[in-house]
């Protein structure tokens, strides 16, 4: 089974992808409207909370953080696999990434934007958020650079802006294609502006190659540092269940894991909605599924390591939190998380399911649910059963306001993502051409070699 048909005509690649930008099908509008409705629910909840105060989220002492922080980590985590596909696999010359990396990178950008919302929603005084920005002022008041939250803000800003630039630079040749082929209305102006006069000259390509490679090299350590810093929010604190040395790699593995699962989901949706069967082939799906399986096992290992280090340590308080997770209020969710995170991915080990679209859709959704639960199970149980017994609170439950905002964030993400896919090519045209070109060259070489071989044999 080949990743892509090698004899696919380049002109056809252009028309196929450009078709996805043209007048939307009914299904597209259905998705957009339902996404906006869901987002509207989140906005309504946030407005209510903004006016009333955070008490309506049913947060309390000691449960000062809740679903907002858990979902924030979830979205940050989701963003990591875009970088995995576009940067790491780019450096490793894995060319099967080419038809699918563009949407993965868009996913990176939009999930970071969604995560950013949660930082805001979480604040008690949202209207003063700029106090955390290091801007010069006459009183020389600066934020506290010691705080992991500030590292977070800095890391997310760096990651978001670098991802947008990376996405944009990688899209310039495709925007030129759009400019050359779409001649109507605001789109033409937009593409003309954004393609910067790209004509594919040798000078442009030469600098493009080096720049793309350089930014890819920067993005890999950046992605690792971003989730390590998110892990530091917890690992740098003193609380039982958070103060764990292995948190940064554990978080990074979890991030790649949930991101890959999300890629599978979106892969299947895009393949169906935009009819990209020719490019998002089952062979590529198979590779992504195998990659996800490998990462799932890494995550499982790190997860078990975390339990083991707590279990065999003499840290009684952390141990109590772990026992609380497994047997207390959160037990159903904790076991569910372990089941979804470590057992469900085993399905991916079977060849017959790797290309089975309905099964993979369900599995990828389950994996993402597991990873969301994982983040919740990191944040909340520590509050319910911390150092100070008098403040133990096992009964706190997030109110509908929290659930509404979490729910709404999925609408916001879907909305941004679908709009992106309608305005910008979600399959990289020039890179698919490169892939087709190099693969056909390689197979021609093989044929020639084969003929020589057989010729020799005939002698």
């Amino acid at each position: 089974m080949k990743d892509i048909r090698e004899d696919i005509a380049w002109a056809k690649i252009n028309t196929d992808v450009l078709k996805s930008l043209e007048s939307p099908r009914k299904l597209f509008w259905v998705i957009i409207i339902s996404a906006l409705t869901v987002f509207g629910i989140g906005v309504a909840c946030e407005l209510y909370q903004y006016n009333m105060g955070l008490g309506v989220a049913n947060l309390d002492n000691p449960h000062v953080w809740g679903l907002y922080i858990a979902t924030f980590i979830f979205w940050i985590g989701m963003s990591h696999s875009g970088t995995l596909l576009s940067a790491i696999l780019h450096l490793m010359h894995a060319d099967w990434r080419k038809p699918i990396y563009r949407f993965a990178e868009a996913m990176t950008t939009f999930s970071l934007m969604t995560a950013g919302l949660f930082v805001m929603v979480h604040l008690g005084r949202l209207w003063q958020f700029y106090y955390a920005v290091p801007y010069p002022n006459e009183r020389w008041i600066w934020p506290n650079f010691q705080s992991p939250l500030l590292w977070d803000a800095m890391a997310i800003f760096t990651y978001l802006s670098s991802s947008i630039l990376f996405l944009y630079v990688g899209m310039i040749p495709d925007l030129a294609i759009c400019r050359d082929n779409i001649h109507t209305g605001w789109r033409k102006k937009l593409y003309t502006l954004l393609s910067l006069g790209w004509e594919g000259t040798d000078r442009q390509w030469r600098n493009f190659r080096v720049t793309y490679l350089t930014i890819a090299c920067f993005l890999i350590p950046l992605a690792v540092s971003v989730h390590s810093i998110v892990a530091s929010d917890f690992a740098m604190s003193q609380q039982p269940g958070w103060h764990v040395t292995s948190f940064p790699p554990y978080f990074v593995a979890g991030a790649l894991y949930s991101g890959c699962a999300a890629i599978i989901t979106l892969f299947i949706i895009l393949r169906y909605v935009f009819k990209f069967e020719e490019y998002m082939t089952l062979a590529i799906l198979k590779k992504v599924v195998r990659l996800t399986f490998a990462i799932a096992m890494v995550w499982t290992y790190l997860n078990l390591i975390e339990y083991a280090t707590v279990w065999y340590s003499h840290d009684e308080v952390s141990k109590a939190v772990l026992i609380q997770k497994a047997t207390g209020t959160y037990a159903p969710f904790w076991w569910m998380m372990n089941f979804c995170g470590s057992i469900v991915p085993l399905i991916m080990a079977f060849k017959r399911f790797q290309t089975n679209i309905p099964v993979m859709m369900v599995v990828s959704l389950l994996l993402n649910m597991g990873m969301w639960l994982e983040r919740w199970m990191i944040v909340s149980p520590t509050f319910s059963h911390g150092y100070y017994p008098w403040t133990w609170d096992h009964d706190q439950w997030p109110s509908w306001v929290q659930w509404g905002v979490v729910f709404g964030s999925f609408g916001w993400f879907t909305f941004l993502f679908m709009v992106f896919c309608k305005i910008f090519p979600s399959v990289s045209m020039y890179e698919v051409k490169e892939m087709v070109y190099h693969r056909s060259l390689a197979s021609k070489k093989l044929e020639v070699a084969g003929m020589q071989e057989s010729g020799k044999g005939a002698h």
Partner: protein
Amino acid sequence: MSKRHLLAIFSNFHEAEAAVKELRNSSIKGFDANQDLIVKSPIEHPEVEEFLGNKPVYVQWFTLCGALTGGLLAFFLISGSQANFFDQVKGGKPVVPFPPNFVLTYEMFILGGVYISILGFLICAGLPARRSPLYSSKVSEDQIGILVKTDEESAGVLKGIFTKHEALEIQEEAGK
């Protein structure tokens, strides 16, 4: 002396390659293959760089400068502001603590590197660019274009070379 632009379109990459090689080896009056020859392609062909001769790329120097500036700026901005922000002691740590400052220095190192690399890319690649005198949208689809600038009288010689290598189409325009 009046100049003339020619754009030849090739559907076969190897023919285009042969045409470029011939142009580089020939000596035509008023045409310097290093300056007046531009190859336009729909994808990034590593071979193009080989047969066009060694043309250096300077983007990485922008990257280096940007990253170092970003890192240094971060460290001194952060340490300086800690020293001046009412000299506040927090959590029993020194006023200028190294571990957090290094984390932020690292982030700014990357931020500076990425931003300035993009700037370097725009400068080195000459973007945003005005449209060149001759362009065919076929180039963004599946064909290779060779754009040359030459003296009026040599245009015929160049056209001959292009036709010899089976150019699909030759556009021309009088330049300045």
